[in-house]
């Protein structure tokens, strides 16, 4: 390790105070500065943060965006969601590789560049998308591929690539209360601080101060909590837990430190609404977090931003700085004695499982993103073992509106069991992909009509872990009592092969399984291999039966929601689009997965032969 490298590393470590819980940010900043995380770099980081080296290596090895082997000075990662595939990402990637004389996944001989796939980058409405050295690029075309290959060969820094490539559209197609919000920063917070409890909700819990020593003003928080509860707001991340109850549980949990965490690890393929909320309404989201801090008594908050949204880090930090200057963050917020709150953005590094709240907390603590055993739940034992509220971006934005305008107002929208509005990320075979905000209760058919999908065969609601809805279900409603959703809405027209949709999702889950528990670690890969076997024309009915039996095992024995929901797209498509599978099956009772002729492909490539004699007679 040379002197400059050592100096860079020392600076990074110093900036983070050698704090092991900040390991993710230390690793990311180190990699941004040095290109990759070399063995001696990891040793130095481990010394710097006082954590065993193997544990640091374990963290670096967990996240897709950290490299412990060199990955080239240019790292191109193509988003591989099904919507990217439908827009032709496969051919474009092959073309880029050809132009660079590269094999996918391999680093070029001169160490200049590598090209690979990554999970959905959240640009489904403007794909095919990719990450160039972790900066989001949208709307790839063959022309851009050609130019990009040239820029890489000429070693032009990514920062000097055409700015238009990095332009990210919001594509807001339908706005309601959240996206139309025009409140100025601080307005919702002022309204929250102005709330005093109504006499009849003055309960014993109010007397228990949310923060010791400020009894005189302790009534306000409980009044705000009452509004949140009255609103019947439910979590927007998919699970739909009642927000008021979560906040109350955290507020009442024993402990002197509390945390508020905003889950912006929007990893569910096909979901990109948090990206737009954080682009257009970041103040509202931060305000919602600050309201949560006011209610629960938290002094510190984190926004866990997915690594794919790296480009948002600086803009979000600027907004936080502005809020600090305006007295909306920091000590004595809006002059209220004892109301201190800080927010920090924590950047993830490519791990879908971190969207699970306890895995997200592990990751925030600088560890591998593995879901915890529950109970205990984060509201009592969260970040650093302290009571922690974890909510989705959209939940916090809604909470800020409720704090300002009241629970009754909010409850007036949506359906009886699903109050308010929901943002949908619409992509796939539609004329107008983008963000649609509707009151709950909208039918799939209405969304399809608005988005201009006149030939829809199916909709994948809430991403791979959600529901594959066939056309006889298009009158079902987006609502907790019918189809709950985190927001993804991927449309497939009749030209699409639903088997390939399911296969893409099976590959996704196998790639993203954290590997903690046996059924999910091995089972998601077995499911992927079965789908590949069927896809390659070697499947039989026995493989379909095997998918069912593995699915039951994953649903029963997996450690967390990832494993429980991974079989959903396979079971749904098997149920509703059976012919897509059956036309691929061999009619034989038994078909070996092993393709004898295929096994000779490598020998043919090496010998440059492709004549009839180099093929086994009976195949194809």
């Amino acid at each position: 390790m040379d002197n400059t490298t050592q100096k860079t590393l020392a600076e990074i470590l110093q900036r983070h105070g050698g704090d092991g819980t900040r390991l993710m940010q230390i690793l990311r900043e180190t990699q941004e500065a040095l290109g990759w995380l070399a063995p001696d770099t990891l040793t130095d980081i481990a010394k710097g943060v006082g954590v065993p080296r193997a544990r640091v290596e374990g963290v670096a090895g967990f996240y897709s965006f950290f490299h412990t082997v060199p990955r080239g000075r240019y790292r191109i990662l193509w988003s591989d969601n099904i919507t990217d595939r439908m827009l032709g990402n496969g051919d474009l990637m092959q073309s880029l590789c050809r132009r660079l004389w590269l094999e996918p996944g391999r680093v070029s001989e001169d160490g200049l560049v590598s090209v690979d796939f990554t999970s959905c980058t959240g640009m489904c409405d403007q794909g095919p998308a990719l990450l160039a050295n972790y900066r989001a690029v949208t709307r790839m075309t063959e022309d851009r591929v050609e130019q990009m290959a040239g820029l890489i060969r000429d070693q032009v820094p990514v920062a000097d690539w055409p700015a238009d490539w990095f332009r990210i559209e919001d594509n807001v197609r339908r706005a309601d209360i959240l996206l139309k919000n025009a409140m100025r920063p601080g307005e919702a917070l002022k309204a929250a601080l102005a709330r005093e409890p109504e006499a009849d909700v003055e309960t014993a819990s109010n007397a228990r101060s949310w923060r010791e020593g400020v009894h005189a003003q302790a009534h306000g928080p409980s009044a705000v909590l009452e509004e949140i509860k009255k609103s019947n707001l439910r979590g927007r991340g998919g699970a739909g837990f009642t927000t008021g109850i979560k906040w109350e549980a955290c507020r009442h949990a024993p402990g002197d430190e509390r945390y508020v965490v905003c889950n912006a690890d929007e990893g569910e393929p096909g979901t990109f609404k948090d990206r737009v909320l954080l682009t257009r309404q970041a103040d509202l989201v931060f305000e919602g977090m600050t309201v949560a801090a006011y209610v629960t008594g938290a002094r510190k908050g984190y926004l866990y931003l997915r690594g794919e949204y790296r480009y948002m880090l600086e803009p979000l930090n600027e907004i936080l700085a502005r809020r600090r200057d305006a007295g909306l963050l920091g000590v004595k917020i809006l002059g209220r004695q004892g109301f201190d709150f800080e927010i920090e953005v924590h950047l993830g590094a490519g791990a879908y499982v971190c969207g699970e709240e306890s895995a997200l907390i592990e990751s925030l603590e600088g560890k591998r993103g593995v879901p915890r055993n529950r109970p205990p739940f984060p509201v009592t034992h969260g970040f650093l073992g302290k009571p922690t509220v974890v909510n989705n971006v959209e939940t916090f934005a809604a909470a800020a509106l409720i704090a300002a305008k009241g629970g009754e107002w909010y409850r007036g929208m949506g359906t009886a069991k699903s109050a308010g509005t929901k943002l949908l990320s619409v992509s796939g075979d539609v004329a107008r992909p983008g963000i649609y905000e509707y009151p709950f209760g909208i039918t799939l058919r209405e969304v399809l009509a608005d988005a201009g999908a006149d030939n829809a065969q199916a909709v994948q609601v809430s991403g791979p872990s959600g529901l594959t809805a066939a056309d006889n279900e298009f009158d079902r409603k987006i609502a907790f009592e019918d189809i709950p959703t985190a927001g993804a809405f991927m449309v497939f027209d009749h030209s699409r092969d639903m088997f390939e949709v399911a296969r893409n999702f099976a590959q996704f889950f196998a790639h993203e399984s954290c590997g903690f528990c046996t059924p999910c670690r091995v089972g998601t890969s077995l499911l992927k291999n079965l789908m590949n076997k069927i896809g390659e024309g070697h499947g039989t009915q026995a493989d379909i039966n095997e998918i069912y039996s593995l699915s039951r095992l994953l649903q029963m024995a997996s450690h967390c929601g990832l494993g429980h929901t991974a079989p959903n797209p396979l079971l749904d498509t098997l149920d509703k689009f059976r012919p897509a599978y059956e036309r691929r099956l061999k009619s034989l009772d038994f078909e070996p997965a092993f393709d004898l002729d295929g096994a000779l492909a490598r020998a043919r490539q090496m010998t440059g032969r492709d004549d009839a004699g180099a093929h086994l007679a009976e195949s194809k």
Partner: protein
Amino acid sequence: MSDQKTFLLDGREIPFEPGQTVMQAALTAGVFIPHLCYHPEFRPHGSCKLCTVKINGRPATSCTMPAQAGMEVESDTAEIRDKRRALVQMLLVEGNHFCPSCEKSGHCKLQALGYALGVMTPHFTHFFPDRPVDASHPEVLLDFNRCILCELCIRASSEVDGKNVFALSGRGLKKHLIVNAESGRLADTDFQATDKAAQVCPVGVILAKRKGFAVPIGQRPFDASPISAQAERYKPVAPAPKKEA
């Protein structure tokens, strides 16, 4: 005894002390629940999922689930045995396991559970992973081919030995055991054959060198009786005291 709290396990009444998990109570009462990542001396982990049971009809991990009075627990049912068999088969195809030539044959828990659960074939397609062997240490061999990722060596090294010799890296099917050295070699760590971590591997990853087949095949613990009849061996005990690092 009238105020002793109990739950039902496959119709049998199992007494438990407050704070005990379903697994601990069952083993104390002499009822075996299959497990791999559980160890009587360590905090439960809940990753292998072999101990999955149904509690009041809902699936749960018995090694992490606190016992509660009146629970109705199903464990040894045809449905659950099927699932457990599949989990053992998953572990067998995930690694490279060759029982006939393995020093741990006869005291390997994975093999013993294979017999107990009626694993006649691997059933699934083998992954045949490429996993190296680490023979660098003078006294101990690491054969990663057999690793089932139970993390017992990790826990033992950190919680008892105070050393942190082992950790995990990678994710999903690529998750793997690593050692605490820049070279990646066990010889370059502070590991010793006398460490607790050297004694807890339920399979054949961590093996003492020059001690091959000291106990003849046929006289090993699981040769005498099936693991399911040896609940006694796994009764919870007080955790080993942590050594000064």
